[in-house]
Every structure is written in structure tokens, then in C-alpha cells.
């Protein structure tokens, strides 16, 4: 599958430049929403869980519809199944936000610290790593509007949700992390995407472990 990737890293990052130019200043709005979720995790409120899930839903729907169908489809026919997967995940998250029953709260235990690390990494460290790897602005995959940091952020938020298990909400992000992480590292020369692979595997494992702990 990886041998048949239909575009080069050069084309991919050129597309990202066009994407960032077109959607500006959506990147700032995405950062503000991400910071809001971080604040709600550190200072929990009754509606924090719903708001966090709604923000995640918005991010996934944006990435599915605007990025995949609107841009990535220009160079990759696989944007159709990917965009569909992202849109489905967005609808699942929106459904969970409406249903409620989960609270967003940072708990200072090992899982909580990993979750916080994911959120901070997605917001601040990932763009820095991308810049160091030569993929800085305007070619950078920005928080919220680009799939990789958004997926890492998603695992962080899901791990900070208390109440009903969020394992099912992590299945599609895990599939994406495995497929896209491997492809980006191997074919596109984007070493910063090792973090996506790691976040997918560690994040989903902790979600399963957290559910087992709750059931014990």
C-alpha cells in the first residue's frame, strides 16, 4: 500500500501551504478552542465534558469535509474514505456531546499526566517539531485544522474524560494514527509524525486500561 502512495512529499506540503493560506484565520480559532478545552480540564465545570466533545466533533468534521474532501482529494483518491472516516468520527463525537454523562477533568495520576502531555504536545510541541523538520509555516500542519495534531489532542481529551468509557470514541482515531503515521514517516519524510503513531498506540492502550480499572 505504501509503495503505491500517489504523491510526493513535495506535492503534499505544497498542498498544505495552499490549505493554510485559504483557511486563514481558522487556525487561530482552532487554537482558541484548544486552549478553552485545556482550561476546562484544569478548571472543571458541569458542561466541560459536553463542550470538549463538541470541540472535538467540530475538529473532526472540519478535517473530514474541508481538508479531505476540499483539498486532499486533489492529490489522493484515498481522501474519499479518509474524509468519510473523519466525518463519521465527527458525528460520533457530536452524538456523545449531546448525550452527555462525561466530565472533563485533569486527574494528576499517570494517565492524567500522559493525557495532559498529549494536549500540550499537540498545541505547542508538534508545530515546533514540524518547523525543526523543515515543515514550518505556511507548510505546517497546524493544531485543530490538520489531522495529526488534532488526533493527538483527541487522545489527550478522551483520556481526561471521566464517567462512561471513551474507548469506542478512540477506535477510528487509532486506525487513522496507525495508517497515516506510518505513511507520513515512511513516504513523506515527516519524522514529527512518529508522535502520531506513538499517541495512537499509547492513547488507545490507556483508554482500554482505564475502562478495565473502572470495571474492576
Amino acid at each position, binding site marked *: 500500500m505504501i509503495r503505491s502512495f*500517489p*504523491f510526493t512529499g513535495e506535492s503534499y506540503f505544497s498542498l498544505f501551504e495552499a490549505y493554510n493560506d485559504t483557511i486563514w484565520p481558522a487556525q487561530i480559532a482552532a487554537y482558541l478552542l484548544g486552549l478553552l478545552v485545556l482550561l476546562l480540564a484544569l478548571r472543571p465545570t458541569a458542561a466541560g465534558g459536553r463542550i470538549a466533545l463538541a470541540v472535538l466533533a467540530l475538529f473532526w468534521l472540519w478535517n473530514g469535509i474541508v481538508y479531505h474532501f476540499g483539498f486532499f482529494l486533489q492529490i489522493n483518491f484515498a481522501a474519499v474514505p479518509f474524509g468519510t472516516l473523519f466525518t463519521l468520527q465527527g458525528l460520533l463525537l457530536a452524538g456523545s456531546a449531546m448525550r452527555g454523562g462525561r466530565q472533563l477533568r485533569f486527574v494528576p495520576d499517570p494517565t492524567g499526566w500522559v493525557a495532559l502531555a498529549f494536549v500540550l504536545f499537540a498545541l505547542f510541541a508538534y508545530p515546533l517539531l514540524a518547523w525543526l523538520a523543515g515543515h514550518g509555516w505556511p507548510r505546517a500542519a497546524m493544531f485543530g485544522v490538520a489531522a495529526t495534531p488534532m488526533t493527538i489532542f483527541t487522545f489527550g481529551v478522551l483520556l481526561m474524560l471521566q464517567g462512561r468509557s471513551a474507548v469506542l470514541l478512540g477506535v477510528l482515531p487509532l486506525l487513522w494514527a496507525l495508517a497515516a503515521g506510518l505513511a507520513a514517516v515512511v513516504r513523506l519524510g515527516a519524522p514529527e509524525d512518529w508522535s502520531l503513531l506513538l499517541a495512537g498506540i499509547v492513547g488507545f492502550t490507556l483508554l482500554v486500561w482505564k475502562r478495565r480499572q473502572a470495571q474492576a
Partner: protein
Amino acid sequence: MNLITRRKFIGSLGAAATIPAWSESHAASGPIITRAIPKSGEKVPMIGLGTWITFNVGSDEKLRAARAQVMQAFFDGGGTLIDSSPMYGSSEGVVGYGLAHTKRPALFAATKVWTMFKPLGVNQMENSRKLWGVERFDLMQVHNLLDWSTHLATLKEMKAQGRLRYIGVTTSQGWRHGDLASVMRSEPLDFVQFTYNVADREVEDVLLPLAAERGIAVIINRPFQEGALINKMKNFPLPTWASEIDCTNWAQFLLKFIISHPAVTCVIPATRRVDHMQENLGAMRGRLPDARMRLRMLRHAENV
């Protein structure tokens, strides 16, 4: 079925191409090597231009202009056949951009239909025609045999109406060779396309002899295994005896091995660089290897 044996086939190597009377050791001069399309006798230059990956550059103006330069080098060097597909992302639009920004004496426009169902196929082919900016395609192929029976019926109709000149079916990387052979035996194809190079030679056993027997032109894709063969070989010096077949680099060595097979009509290496395009085009001038030299090339490639 009267299949040509591999021994007979190797014995006939070098006999089918229109090879110039040529004894100089420079690959860059002399007439272009062409080969006739069996169904019509029309001759095409044996080095074409593929667009998989390399031409999929989206709407980036700078990258589109760079690909147009590659196309200009291709036309300037005597190339005519360009092959693409709607599966290749933005490649067809980039080819269209290149055609609008280059001067060319001739073009052999080849693309594919890659979808299910007749209405979607018809719509896709019309969209491809608009992207290329051509009046009609010379060759339309069913990509990777996808819904081939439906599309071949449409292509036959279009050919009868003069909306296409040739029709064909493609595969790559060794996929569905058995199915392709069945289609070649049962349908009136003008062209087939599949993978052949010094490392992938399964097609020598059935598909190439079958194409020769049925009078089907053959386009070869992935001559460098998406660059893997070149990357492997560039670490070693070109053997001195490569000059006997007028090769000055590994790309020409690999391409001349392919086009010296008598059943091959054209090979379509893809590149994004003008200098690589010029290297590739050098393979369609000068002497081609005979059967003995082909075996020597194979042995050498296997040991590199």
C-alpha cells in the same frame, strides 16, 4: 492456442523494432527508435512519458510549470506518447496545463477509465478529456481491469464512432495477470499495459508472447520500480560494455533492456526532472541489445 515459446521469442529479439542503421557509440544522436502499433502500423517513439506520482502536484503553479518543462524536454527529444489516469490525483490536469504551455510537433494522448458502471465511466472520460484539453484521446484504457467488461463495451462504441483511435486494458505490479490474459484472448484490444523490467519478468512467460501472437501493442509501466532499481544500481559503475549498446547511464541501460523485447511497443518512465527526462530519451537512440546482450544485462543486473 499457439503461444510463442520463450526461446523462440528471445531468438527473435531485435528483429521487430525499427532500429536505425547505426554504428556510432553515442546514444544522443541518430534517428529515434520507433515501433509499429500492430493493429494499424502507425509508428510511435519507444520512450513515452508516465505521470504516476510525479505529475500529481495539485494546483501549485511553480510545480506545474516545472512539469511543463519536463514535457517540453520530452517533446523536444522526440517523444509523443503521454500516459495518465484519473487515479493519479491531479496528474491529468497538470498534463493539460503542460500541453497548453508547450510547443510540440505531435502528441499521442493516452489515459484510462477507473471507476465502476457505464454512466460514471462516460462522465469520467469526458472529464479527463477536458482536463487534458484535447479533442479526443488516441488511446483509452481500462485501468487495472476495473469493471472492464462494462467499459470495454463503451470503448468499442466510442472507437466505432471515431471518438477514440485505440482501446486497451492495463494492470501493474503483477496484479491479475491471469485475468488480463483472458481479456487479451477474448477481446479485440489494440493495447495492453503492464509492468516489466529487469527485476519483474513474469510477463515474458505469457503476456508478452500472447500480445505478439494477438497483434496487441504493449505499453510497459514501472520500468524503474518507482526509482528503486535506479537507486540500487547508481551505487555501482555502469559496465564498460554498456557502450556497445550506446548506454551512458543506468536509466538507459534499464530502458534499453525493456524496449529491446520485440513485443514491447513503448515504455513510460515517469520523472519530475528535465535532466532525467533527457537521460530517458537517450535510450531511444543508438543500438539496442540483441539476445546475447540482453542475457548479459540480466546477469549483471542480478549481481548488482
